[in-house]
């Protein structure tokens, strides 16, 4: 894997009035990664993408795409990026899909007409229809064609599966996987439908209230967040230096279950030293592990 970064931000901060949208975000997306950017609604996912495209200006910090400064080289950056916005609305509602495709093609020297025709076919876009009359799902499919047809080295997908019915969703994600096999691409996916896209991901970043609280590879995430089944004596308290994501402690019995963040051997040793007996340590599915950073106690 290349050590080069496809996208990076440095101390990115941004406010909407008194609301904090981003707070010191240091994004690092290696070239070739499929990077899942996760977080609750309003955590800063869409704003981060817009800064990468220079559609939003940060109050502090900077952003780079393939080493290009997004603020001073916006047009050069956007030429390298395929963007699927969160909004389903198109700017040119009065155009037919065919006309819009021709229009967008003019903006991209790298536009691949044969591939565009193939994508139109795969996604079932009816090119004679007016853009403004498309359903939510059809509009999304057209946006996929527009984002992929110039084979950009960076794809920014904001809630890509939103509005797609399950059948179309699977076909779309399969097409995306095939696209990645044919074209060297870095992908950033912002979503809260983690289970729909998680199998594609190899990197994960978690935003919480505008702060990037976790950023690691999929395997690191798997190693860092585990579920612990523990037997504890009456009145036992979790040591304060253990990072607790969530707890299940029944009223009766001595068995409790915690989702804890940290290197498993070290965490187990800490629990044992505190008088608990660890009976089982299990890894979690990606979504559950990522959720741990959104719910970590005392981290907000």
């Amino acid at each position, binding site marked *: 894997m290349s050590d080069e970064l496809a996208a990076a931000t440095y101390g990115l901060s941004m406010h909407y009035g008194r609301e904090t949208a981003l707070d010191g975000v240091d994004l690092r997306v290696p070239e070739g990664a499929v990077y899942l950017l996760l977080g609750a609604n309003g955590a800063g996912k869409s704003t981060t993408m817009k800064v990468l495209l220079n559609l939003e200006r940060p109050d502090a910090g900077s952003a780079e795409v393939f080493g290009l400064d997004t603020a001073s080289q916006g047009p050069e950056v956007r030429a390298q990026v395929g963007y699927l916005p969160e909004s389903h609305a198109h700017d040119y509602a009065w155009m037919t899909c065919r006309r819009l495709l021709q229009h967008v093609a003019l903006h991209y020297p790298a536009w691949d007409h044969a591939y565009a025709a193939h994508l139109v076919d795969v996604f079932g876009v009816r090119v004679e229809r007016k853009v403004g009359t498309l359903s939510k799902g059809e509009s999304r499919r057209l946006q996929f064609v527009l984002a992929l047809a110039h084979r950009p080295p960076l794809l920014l997908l904001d809630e890509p599966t939103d509005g797609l019915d399950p059948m179309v969703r*699977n076909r779309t*994600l399969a097409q995306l*996987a095939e696209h990645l*096999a*044919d074209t060297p691409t870095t992908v950033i996916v912002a979503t809260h439908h983690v289970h729909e896209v998680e*199998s594609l*991901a190899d990197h994960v970043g978690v935003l919480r209230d505008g702060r990037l609280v976790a950023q690691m590879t999929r395997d690191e995430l*798997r190693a860092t967040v585990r579920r612990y089944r523990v037997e504890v004596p009456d009145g036992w308290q979790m040591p304060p230096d253990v990072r607790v994501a969530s707890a299940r402690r029944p009223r009766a019995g001595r068995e409790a279950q915690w989702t804890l963040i940290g290197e498993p051997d070290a965490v187990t040793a800490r629990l044992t030293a505190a008088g608990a007996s660890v009976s089982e340590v299990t890894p979690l599915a990606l979504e559950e592990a990522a959720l741990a950073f959104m719910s970590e106690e005392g981290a907000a």
Partner: protein
Amino acid sequence: MLVNLDPNDGRSLYLQIMDEVRRAIVVGTLQAEDPLPSVRELAGELVVNPRTVSQAYQELEREGVIYVRRGQGTFVSPAVKRGAGERRRKLTREVAKRALLDARRNGLDAEELVTMIRKLAAEEGETE
């Protein structure tokens, strides 16, 4: 070859793909010199990162389970018959590991589990 991935399986996806290929060979749905799906095809089918499929194929190639014929694709190794015992053992190991984990979670030990498996197998034998 049918590959199934389990998102709740804690193991890496490439390891799951490797296991599925081994399983297909053990049960005979994949045999020596059979072609495997291309990286692109399998990535599309499973909706996984093509790199994940490549990693699984590279590891399997390193183990001698499959081999690449330049420009033609990936095939099951002809030596696969010779490695059958070894692969069976590896598969058994994985199945046993899962069963043991489940047993421990339920407060049972290995001896209780093995005894009950023997008893159940014997009962099934009687009813057949």
